[in-house]
């Protein structure tokens, strides 16, 4: 039976059901409920919760536990998530599967508590040093958050790479009716062939080559494989659309309302909703018709971030020099009426293209 659950609590419970054995984190609004929930629930099931001294320490605790093959996670927001960037690099460097949850709040520095998508670049480009990528899940409902959380470790272990769940303040704070999957367990630590187990330097690539040998090529191959295999999206009325919107997370829901309103007026608009924002769903753009008139990124940023990926995908997948527009609503999820008005201005030629 469905029950009303708050987004942040649902993340925490879904993590437990996905086999998370260890959580380390430091409180920061608007994701504090994740840790609060797990502080009680983890020990209840004989699992481990540590309130770390800071966000960095939490991540290095994950490095330790993750190296032994244990399913573990941390969560944060805003400046707290910025502090995790160095460690994400170390985890990528050492090929340690772990799960990061960012419930995005607006702005750089202290920012504000408003719901936003301003950490999009940080998530998809990486805020640490070096060349690495993380698969980034971007749910737009609490049920989808649960479902994606449930498979996060499976993907992390498949590629031996950290993965990220990108939530946003409003999605963490709101409630929806959801159902949870059954509890499952991760693979046995002793059965994984790469883990740190106290014996010696056996945590090589899967064929016995030490981790530091031929690394650039292996990194590139891994990134390319993830890009090829893990693109995920939902298309809504794209095929015949003269204008195609692109939005992920909560803005995708209000944009879809806007699409419905415009369709009711006979205006052919569609929506591509990335479910993973890295790898970005380039393949989704293959469905766009040849004589499409414009692509519109709708996002909760100040100056446009997602729009750059939208432009790259348009360049690669759509013939002709199709203009790409951006509607950035900063600290507020776009309202359907705002999106409708913007799209109408685009159609009227009153908006300037970004790319």
């Amino acid at each position, binding site marked *: 039976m469905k*029950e*009303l659950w708050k987004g942040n609590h649902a993340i925490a419970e879904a993590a437990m059901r996905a086999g998370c054995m260890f959580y380390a984190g430091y409180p920061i609004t608007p994701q504090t409920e994740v840790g609060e929930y797990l502080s009680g629930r983890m020990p209840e099931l004989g699992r481990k919760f540590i309130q770390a001294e800071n966000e960095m320490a939490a991540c290095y605790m994950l490095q330790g536990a993750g190296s032994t093959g244990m399913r573990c996670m941390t969560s944060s927001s805003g400046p707290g998530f910025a502090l995790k960037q160095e460690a994400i690099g170390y985890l990528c460097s050492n090929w340690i599967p772990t799960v990061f949850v960012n419930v995005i709040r607006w702005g750089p520095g202290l920012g504000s508590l408003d719901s936003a998508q301003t950490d999009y670049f940080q998530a998809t480009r990486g805020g640490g040093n070096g060349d690495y990528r993380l698969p980034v899940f971007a749910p737009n409902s609490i049920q989808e958050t649960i479902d994606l959380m449930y498979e996060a470790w499976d993907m992390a272990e498949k590629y031996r790479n950290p993965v990220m769940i990108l939530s946003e303040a409003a999605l963490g704070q*709101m*409630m*929806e009716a959801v159902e949870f999957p059954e509890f499952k367990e991760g693979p046995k630590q002793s059965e994984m062939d790469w883990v740190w187990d106290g014996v010696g330097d056996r945590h090589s690539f899967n064929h016995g080559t030490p981790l530091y040998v031929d690394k650039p090529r292996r990194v590139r191959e891994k990134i390319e494989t993830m890009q090829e295999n893990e693109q995920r999206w939902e298309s809504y009325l794209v095929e015949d659309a003269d204008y195609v919107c692109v939005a992920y997370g*909560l803005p995708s829901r209000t944009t879809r309302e806007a699409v419905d309103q415009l369709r009711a007026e006979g205006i052919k608009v569609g929506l591509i909703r990335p479910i993973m924002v890295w790898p970005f769903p380039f393949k989704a753009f293959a469905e766009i018709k040849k004589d499409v008139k414009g692509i519109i990124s709708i996002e909760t940023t100040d100056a446009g971030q997602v729009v750059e990926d939208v432009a790259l995908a348009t360049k690669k997948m759509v013939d002709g020099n199709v203009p790409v527009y951006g509607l950035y609503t900063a600290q507020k999820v776009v309202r359907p009426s705002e999106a409708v008005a913007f799209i109408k201005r685009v159609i009227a030629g009153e908006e300037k293209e970004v790319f």
Partner: protein
Amino acid sequence: MEIIFAGFGGQGVLTSGLITAEMALSAGKNVTWMPAYGPSMRGGKAYSVVKFSDGVIGGPDYDTPDVVVAMNGPSLEFADCLKDGGLLIVNTDAVDTVPDYNGRIDVVEVACTTLAESVKNIKAANIVSIGAIIKARQIFDIEDAKVALKDYFVSHGKGKFAEANEAALMAGFECVK
């Protein structure tokens, strides 16, 4: 259906939204509930938004609500975004003068606090407002709503207040003609 419950912090507008969401869920609807968040919470202002529908629900925040419950004067600002023909419930115990909306919207005046007091449950002014909406807009069967209300308090370990809260719900329900 899109409802805003607005008032000062402490008037229970998050709870009244949540209870309404639970009532909608038990009526088999898709539901979202969102608390006011960020700067909008400053200055003691609080609100929550409930949306329910048989179909897909878009964003959880308000856009053009069907119903606004204004538990205090400052909350009347939400009335401006009500759709034409929408319903404004005004808590006259905390609002001195109700503006004239020239018939654009329906206005129902409810003395929420006085009615709550009359059933010896002064804290339940927020629940009175739910009863008023149910009567004015027939969003739920009142008997089903009573069951959902009771379930809410029982599941939150406050079952002993269920009866007093039902009285508040009915006081709101019955005051609307």
